[in-house]
C-alpha cells in the first residue's frame, strides 16, 4: 500500500516558490543558534527587561545631564541640539495549539493555545552609536472553544 501511494504522481510546487523562499532566506537576518529551554525563555527576557529598564533610566538621566557620550552638562549645554535617538520596535509572536481540555462545570471542550510574544525596542544614538535595548516578553495560555463534530 505504501509503495502504491508513493507511486502516485504528485502535483509539484512551482519555480516561483523556490525563488520566494530563496529571497526570504537571503533577506532574513541570521537566527541565533542557541537553544533555550522554556524556563530560560521566560526568565532570561525578564532579566533583559530589567536591565533594559535600568539602562533606559540611565540614558534618560544622561540625556537630562547632557547626552550619551558622558560629557557634562556644562560641556554640552544645549540638550535640544543633540539629535533624538532612533527608535526601532519589533515584535515576534508565536501561537502553538495545545491539547483539548474540559473545564470544570463545562460540557464543551476548549483547546489551549500557548501564546508567546517578545517586543524589542532599540534606541540608537546616531552620533555616538550608543544603543540600548528593551525586551518585553509576554506569555499567555489562551482557551478557545473547540468545535464539536
Amino acid at each position, binding site marked *: *500500500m*505504501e509503495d*502504491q*501511494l*508513493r*507511486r*502516485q*504522481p*504528485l*502535483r*509539484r*510546487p*512551482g519555480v*516561483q*516558490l*523556490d525563488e*520566494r*523562499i*530563496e529571497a*526570504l*532566506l537571503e*533577506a*532574513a*537576518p*541570521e*537566527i*541565533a*543558534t*542557541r*537553544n*533555550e*529551554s522554556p524556563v530560560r525563555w521566560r526568565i532570561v527576557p525578564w532579566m533583559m527587561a530589567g536591565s533594559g529598564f535600568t539602562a533606559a533610566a540611565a540614558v534618560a538621566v544622561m540625556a537630562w545631564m547632557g547626552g550619551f557620550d558622558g560629557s557634562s552638562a556644562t560641556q554640552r549645554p544645549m540638550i535640544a541640539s543633540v539629535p533624538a535617538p532612533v527608535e526601532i520596535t519589533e515584535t*515576534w509572536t*508565536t501561537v*502553538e*495549539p*495545545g*491539547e483539548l481540555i474540559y473545564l470544570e462545570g463545562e460540557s464543551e471542550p476548549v483547546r489551549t493555545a500557548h501564546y508567546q510574544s*517578545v517586543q524589542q525596542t532599540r534606541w540608537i544614538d546616531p552620533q555616538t552609536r550608543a544603543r540600548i535595548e528593551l525586551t518585553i516578553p509576554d506569555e499567555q495560555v489562551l482557551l478557545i472553544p473547540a468545535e464539536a463534530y
Partner: protein
Amino acid sequence: VTVEEPCVKQELAGIYVEHRQGLFTLALSIVRDPERAQDAVHDAFARLCRTAHRPTGDLTAYVFAAVRNAAIDICRRSPPGTVSIFETEGDSPEPSPAAQVAEHERDQLVRRELEKLPDAQKQVIMMKIYGELTFEQIAQSLGEPLQTVASRYRRALARLRETMESFV
C-alpha cells in the same frame, strides 16, 4: 554575542531543498489550492525567519509544523479549494505505465480513498509517505504522542488496504 555555528538559515535552506515536495504536498492537502499551498510554505518560512532563536528539537519537524499551521491559518481566512494533491492525467508530463485500465482504476481508487481519510490520518500519511519523516518527527510536528501517530498511520493504511481488497 554572535554564535558562529551552525547557521540556522543554511539548515532551513537544506530542509527546504530536501523536503520541498513534502512540505508543498502537506500544505496542498490542507488548502487544496496550489497557489495557496505555496503561500502556506512561504508564510511558514517567513515566520521561521522572524524567529529570534533556533527552535528546540528537530528543526525539520518544526518546519513541517509551521507549514501545517500556516495552511490551517489560510483555511481559516477562506475555505479550502478542491484541487487534489495528485496530478490529473492531463497534467502528467509523460504517459504512465499505470495507464492500463485495471491499474488506472486502482490508482484512481486509492487517490479517492486517501482524500476521504479524516484530516488527522491524512496529514500523518502526507508527512510519512511524501514528507519522509520518522514517526518521532511527525509526533513532534503534530504535538501528539508517538503511539497515537503510529496507530493513526496504521489505521489509515488499513482503511486504504480494505478498500483496495474490496476492489480486487
